[in-house]
């Protein structure tokens, strides 16, 4: 059952009004009656009525006015006008003002009911239409408000409807679209060659059913439209723009990918065993991540003069490309660019030549077979070590900022890996070197505690690393050095200076060894000393060897003197021998004479009674015998022969003794007291043959000259070299005919703090330009065989280096040369590493024993 019709009756006449109400209610109509137009309008405003039956003539507001108000206010009611007087014009006006019907009094209830029913139907239709309109308006608003493109096509592809967004995207007015064929519009207005929908294979293959049109990327949703009877008459297409969404999505994906790559790249280098494998894996990873066709690394070769391709990854397309082999590529412009830039990008543009500045770089890229290239330098220790480069075969999209960031990070990771590899290799080498060197190495902290000893030092000291670690280096102290010695050492290194010297240390087995040490502090960048590194060498054998070498030098010089010394000995030996032979002969003669005399005496009486008879020869037997035996001669010569033989023996003895003192073996480090005057005399004796034919000796010795602590062998050697040189200088002058005999002057003086020795000659002198060189080893002006050039250099070493003395030379060409030696009288304090040996006391007594 339909809802009852709601009717309002408006009539100023009470009876009519009530009668109508009654009749209508009796007809099943929900009815209300009011007497006034205002009251009626008020009711209409407050609630819905289907039909209003309005009397035309009313005192307050007539029916016409009311119609006007209903219409103006849009009140939803269907008005019916009734009147007692039939005025046509009123009826027409009423109809114009929206009245549904015009009835005349008296009103037949049946007729009225029919009219009310029709009016009610009309009201219902109106109401429905209103609703429909509203809906359509709403739909249109929604349709146009959609950000998606929506269009409806009929089965012929004509646009039935489209929303504003679509029209905007196409760029045409909606009216120009509706009713036109979609594909035609696309072709006409957008130059599309293919049918966009239905025929596009993209729609089929694309799982997301997306479409790229209007410079964007859209999701395409398609549905059919059917008549209520189910017959399909068209399709509706919704295109949702996902360009931005997709981009965001893409970026997110890239971001994730990027992070993944970075983490993988980093993980390649963690605990890496084979760096090359890690790098190759990384190249592949970043290559595929950044859609590169080729990723490669060039590195400086071992010689450091060229860059070589060390790692190369490329896509399968690569092999088909005619890229130059690495050897043929001249990288110079790229290398040059990379030394200044953090990255170098090269893009070979298809249109137009590249900028001149980039021409050379483009050639590099072309030579590498790439259209697009990006390279990152790899610096190791501020030096270009190589570069990481990515390239593409075609000019695809530009490198994304994210890719660049990835590449930068990767280049950094590879750089640090290479750097580590380099430094690890260096460290390995250093470790190898330290482990295999013969030099002992100890590292201590500042305490000092031993933190490291290398195998060589384990061998030198006899302590194993386990035994030494953590201990104080005192572990090997022998107790043979004074506390001051160590204090000096500590002062030196704690002030950050390097200490060099020699230790007498004790091995684990108790034996003492000598080691040459260099101890250097290790500093932090802020200057703080953190460690000390000691490099030590066992020089026990070397010291022995050095002593042997010194001895050998001494022997050598003695050998040089040997010929002269032999002469000095051979000459006396010659005359001693001759004298002794003479004495033998004389003795024979004398004994024969004695025998004869005895015989004569025995034959005659004794004592002779008479003087012996003089025979014919004018003498007796004895006289004859005495005459024959040349007794006078013998009596004169025999004492001389004996005397000269003794002289000869003394000379030989003197030479032998001087020789022994001269070459007294003193190869220990200790010094013993030496009488310098005596030493000079010995040296003169030993070298006598060198000077005696050309020079006379003038000695001016200071008798108060104190004994001097020294190494006698070294000093004697020094004196000898100077004396021989002086003799040679004089000899040269003798040969030039200046004189027959020169003069060799030796002076000693006791000065307050020095012993001064001057050895001078009046020989040829030394030209000023040579004076500087004379102490250089192997410098000589003498002909081969007369000198090795070592003499003065050895002299210098003995006096200056060994005895902390000075040696000066005064010389004038043609007038002579004087060497002035000054030896410090105070015992020189032991130089660092020149320790006093504990045996020195015993040696001292031995020496004095010899001297006595």
């Amino acid at each position, binding site marked *: 059952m339909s809802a009852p019709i709601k009717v309002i009756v408006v009539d100023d006449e009470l009876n009519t009004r009530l009668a109508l109400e009654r009749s209508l209610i009796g007809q099943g109509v929900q009815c209300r009656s009011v007497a006034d137009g205002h009251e009626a309008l008020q009711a209409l405003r407050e609630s819905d009525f289907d039909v209003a039956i309005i009397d035309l003539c009313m005192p307050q507001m007539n029916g016409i006015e009311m119609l006007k108000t209903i219409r103006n206010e849009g009140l939803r009611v269907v008005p019916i006008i009734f009147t007692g007087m039939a005025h046509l014009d009123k009826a027409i006006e009423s109809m114009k003002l929206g009245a549904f019907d015009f009835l005349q009094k008296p009103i037949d209830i049946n007729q009225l009911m029919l009219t009310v029913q029709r009016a009610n139907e009309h009201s219902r239709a109106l109401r429905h239409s209103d609703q429909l309109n509203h809906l359509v308006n709403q739909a249109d608003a929604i349709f146009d408000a959609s950000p998606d493109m929506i269009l409806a096509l009929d089965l012929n592809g004509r646009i039935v409807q489209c929303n504003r967004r679509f029209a905007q995207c196409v760029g045409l007015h909606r009216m120009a679209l509706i009713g036109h064929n979609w594909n035609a519009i696309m072709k006409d207005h957008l130059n599309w060659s293919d049918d966009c929908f239905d025929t596009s294979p993209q729609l089929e293959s694309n799982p997301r059913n997306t479409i790229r049109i209007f410079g964007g990327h859209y999701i395409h949703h398609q549905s059919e439209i059917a008549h209520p009877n189910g017959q399909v008459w068209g399709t509706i297409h919704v295109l949702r723009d996902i360009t931005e969404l997709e981009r965001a999505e893409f970026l997110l994906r890239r971001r994730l990918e990027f992070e993944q790559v970075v983490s993988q790249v980093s993980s390649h280098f963690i605990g890496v065993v084979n760096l090359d494998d890690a790098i190759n894996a990384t190249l592949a990873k970043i290559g595929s991540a950044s859609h590169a066709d080729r990723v490669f690394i060039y590195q400086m070769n071992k010689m450091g003069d060229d860059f070589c391709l060390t790692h190369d990854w490329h896509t399968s397309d690569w092999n088909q490309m005619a890229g130059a082999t690495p050897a043929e590529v001249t990288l110079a412009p790229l290398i040059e660019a990379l030394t200044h830039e953090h990255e170098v990008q090269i893009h070979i543009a298809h249109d137009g030549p590249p900028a001149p500045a980039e021409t050379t770089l483009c050639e590099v890229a072309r030579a590498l077979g790439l259209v697009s290239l990006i390279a990152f330098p790899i610096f190791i220790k501020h030096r270009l070590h190589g570069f990481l480069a990515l390239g593409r075969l075609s000019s695809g999209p530009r490198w994304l900022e994210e890719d660049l960031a990835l590449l930068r990070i990767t280049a950094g990771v590879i750089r640090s890996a290479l750097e580590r590899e380099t430094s690890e290799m260096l460290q390995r080498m250093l470790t190898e070197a330290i482990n295999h060197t013969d030099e002992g190495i100890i590292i201590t902290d500042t305490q000092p505690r031993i933190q490291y000893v290398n195998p060589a030092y384990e061998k030198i000291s006899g302590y194993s690393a386990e035994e030494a670690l953590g201990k104080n280096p005192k572990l090997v102290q022998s107790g043979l050095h004074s506390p001051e010695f160590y204090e000096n050492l500590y002062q030196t290194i704690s002030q950050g200076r390097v200490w060099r010297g020699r230790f007498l240390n004790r091995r684990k087995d108790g034996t003492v060894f000598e080691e040459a040490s260099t101890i250097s502090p290790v500093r932090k960048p802020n200057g703080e000393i953190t460690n000390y590194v000691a490099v030590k060498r066992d020089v026990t054998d070397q010291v022995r060897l050095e002593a042997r070498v010194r001895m050998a030098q001494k022997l050598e010089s003695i050998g040089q003197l040997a010929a002269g010394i032999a002469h000095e000995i051979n000459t006396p*030996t010659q005359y001693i*021998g001759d004298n002794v032979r003479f004495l033998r002969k004389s003795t024979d003669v004398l004994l024969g004479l004695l025998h004869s005399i005895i015989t004569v005496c025995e034959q005659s009486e004794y004592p002779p009674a008479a003087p012996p008879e003089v025979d014919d020869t004018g003498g007796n037997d004895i006289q004859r015998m005495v005459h024959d035996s*040349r007794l006078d001669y013998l009596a004169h010569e025999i004492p001389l022969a004996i005397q000269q033989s003794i002289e000869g023996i003394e000379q030989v003895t003197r030479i032998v003794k001087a020789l022994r003192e001269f070459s007294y073996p003193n190869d220990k480090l200790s010094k013993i007291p030496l009488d310098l005057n005596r030493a000079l005399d010995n040296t003169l004796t030993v070298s006598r043959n060198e000077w005696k034919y050309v020079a006379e000796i003038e000695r001016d010795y200071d008798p108060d000259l104190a004994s001097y602590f020294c190494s006698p062998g070294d000093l004697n050697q020094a004196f000898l070299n100077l004396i021989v040189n002086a003799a040679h200088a004089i000899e040269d002058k003798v040969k030039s005919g200046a004189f027959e005999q020169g003069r060799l002057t030796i002076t000693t003086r006791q000065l307050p703090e020095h012993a001064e020795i001057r050895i001078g000659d009046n020989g040829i002198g030394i030209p000023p330009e040579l004076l500087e060189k004379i102490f250089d080893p192997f410098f000589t002006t003498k002909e081969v065989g007369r000198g090795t050039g070592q003499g003065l250099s050895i002299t210098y070493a003995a006096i200056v280096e060994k005895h902390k003395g000075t040696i000066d030379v005064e010389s004038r060409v043609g007038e002579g040369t004087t060497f002035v030696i000054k030896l410090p009288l105070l015992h020189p304090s032991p130089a660092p590493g020149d320790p006093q040996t504990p045996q020195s006391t015993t040696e001292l007594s031995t020496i004095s024993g010899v001297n006595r």
Partner: protein
Amino acid sequence: MTTILLVDDEQNVLNAMRRSLFDLNESHALHFVPNADQALRLLEQQPVDVLLSDIRMPGMSGEELLLKAYHHHPEVLRFGISGYSKRETSIALINAVHQFFAKPCDIDHLLHSIDRACDGRDRISHPDLRRLVLGTGALPVQAQSLRRLTKELNNPQACIDRIGRLVSQDAGMSAKVLQVVNSAFFGLCRHVSSAAEAAVMLGPEILRAMVHTTDSFQPLEKLPAGSVDLHHMWQWAVQIGDTAYNLALHFSRNRHAADHALIAGNLIPIGLLLLMHDPGLWHEITSQAQLQARPLCQVERDYLGLTHTEIAAVLADIWGFPEPVAAALRYAHHPEAHPLQEFDAVCAVHMALSIVGQFGACSIKGLPCGQLHPAVRALLPHGAFDAPADFLAPFDEELVHATH
């Protein structure tokens, strides 16, 4: 009467010598002077047979004195004596002195050597020959040998054995190095058994000095007319020496005798070399030999009073070679003139000559053996000389190849 001039700056040495010679009879006149200047003056003033000088002296050295004597008084026998043994001092004297003595030296040995040298010299009556024998310091050598030796000596990696071999391939060189080693030139007087050994002992340095600074070896670029082929002659001498060595070793079983025989054999051509050194004299003798068609030895004896082997013997005396060497040379052709008690170097050289053949009388390989003197044959065991070729030293092929 022999006049001896002794020079030494050390008065003690002179005194002692005078004393130890006080019992010499009048056969010797001794002059002792303390310096070279006085010695030179004395040499100018009176004839002196022997000059014996110390080497190292202030003023004019003995070296200088002896060199002056060599040049101005070549007929004087010159002996050096020194306690000094520096090598370079003595090198200059290699040509100038006949013998060198080292101090300390037994005065009796010294006097004996002097007397022996004088005796040797006195055997030469021909004045030209005497001058030649006493005044010749440098010996003629084959030019080619000298070039090869020089080349080898200049090679920094010179092989001393090779040098020895090169020296032993030349008569003049061999004789000279034997003379130097035999005397106490370098403070040592050694017994050596071959020229090669002598060269090795001297060492490349002294040999170099001998070649370059003293010209001890005088290359005979052009042989005087009538000369024999030096190389040919030297091969003959080497074969004589080696054969004599084999014989001595076999029959005497005395190594010294064998060494003496070898050295004597090698020295045989020295006489010829010396004669060639005086082209005039040499030409005279060789042309006479050709003219008279007589053996060279006979012409030599007629002309000079001595054969070339006897001249070699004189040189051996003057140079102080061991006396058996001098004897072997002197009596090589007349062993009977020498007291033969056992098979010694004299016999060995004589026998070697008879086997190898006398130079110029037959070819090198000829084996006439009928000339062996009966006195020598008598010393041999029975049948020992049936196969003389057994003793013939092999012809040194290497020598031939090396030289040609």
